[in-house]
């Protein structure tokens, strides 16, 4: 048993599951957005804003935002533990990444509900 404190789920199993589920959600969201843009060539502000005014779209988008936050946390945490060997630099980088993810998440929520 190897102990860890800066990974997302405190366990490799939960990180592994979160990574797979979030990847699936992000794939669905990407497919949806690409398809929406393809089927609406002359997209204007009213239509775009109307799409994001609907509750289901907000839920779907927030789910994707949370997914990308979790996915980035798990993925970048793994990269730092593989390649950054000095403990101070590694923990520092991990904290910067986690704080940035938090900032982007709150900002994203504000954008989503603000307009």
């Amino acid at each position, binding site marked *: *048993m*190897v*102990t*860890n404190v800066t*990974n997302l789920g405190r*366990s*490799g*199993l939960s*990180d*592994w*599951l979160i990574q797979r589920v979030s990847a699936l959600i992000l794939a669905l969201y990407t497919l949806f957005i690409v398809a929406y843009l393809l089927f609406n060539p002359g997209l204007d502000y009213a239509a775009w804003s109307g799409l994001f005014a609907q509750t289901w779209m907000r839920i779907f988008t927030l789910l994707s935002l949370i997914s990308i936050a979790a996915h980035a946390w798990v993925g970048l*945490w*793994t990269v730092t*533990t*593989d*390649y950054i060997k000095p403990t101070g630099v590694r923990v520092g980088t991990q904290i910067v990444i986690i704080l940035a993810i938090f900032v982007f998440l709150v900002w994203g929520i504000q954008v989503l509900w603000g307009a």
Partner: protein
Amino acid sequence: MSMLQVSIYRYNPETDSAPYMQEYQVDTQGRDLMVLNVLEMLKAEDTTLAYRRSCREGVCGSDGMNMNGKNGLACITSLSEVVKDNKLTLRPLPGLPVVRDLVVDMGLFYQQYERIQPYLQNDEPAPAIERLQSPEERDKLDGLYECILCACCSTSCPSFWWNPDKFVGPAGLLQSYRFLADSRDKATRERLAELEDPFSVFRCRGIMNCVAVCPKGLNPTRAIGKIREMLLANAT
């Protein structure tokens, strides 16, 4: 044209400040020798050359090394399998400290093997005869027990290179599953609890270098997948 160009990684920490590649010429007389045969011929000329070998038939797992960029056992790898443009480059197994020339310190590899407790654990009273298994239960151990611990797989795995102290590695995990899958072993829960952190099993990224190099044709990636399934079944 039968002179084979052999380039060998040389390092003697007592006399060399840094490792270097030494060039040799070997007359194979057109024969398709095993790589170990070539090393034996060179050793007869240059007695300072160091490498491990024992059974010379792919059973003991002593002569694992990197041949033209791919890990394998020198004794069962023929020149025709690895030599390109009449050139053979031999290096020690990657990722482990070099003791001398092609001899590596396997300490980290064995530590991870020890960690998975590679022995049957069963505290139930022993029956009058052996602990029996059905043929189906015994079949589950095929493809697992054949591992000879040559370390070709673990030392071809980048996850093991970066975290050899935390990631068990393909060889250790194959053995771990060998005991998890054994109907006579009763320590399944304890074994799984040791493995659910982000490193021991989950550092495997599934690139399957281990499967590509295993001289015994085993599949550690499949065993790792089975361990993940067991962990998931146990925790959801």
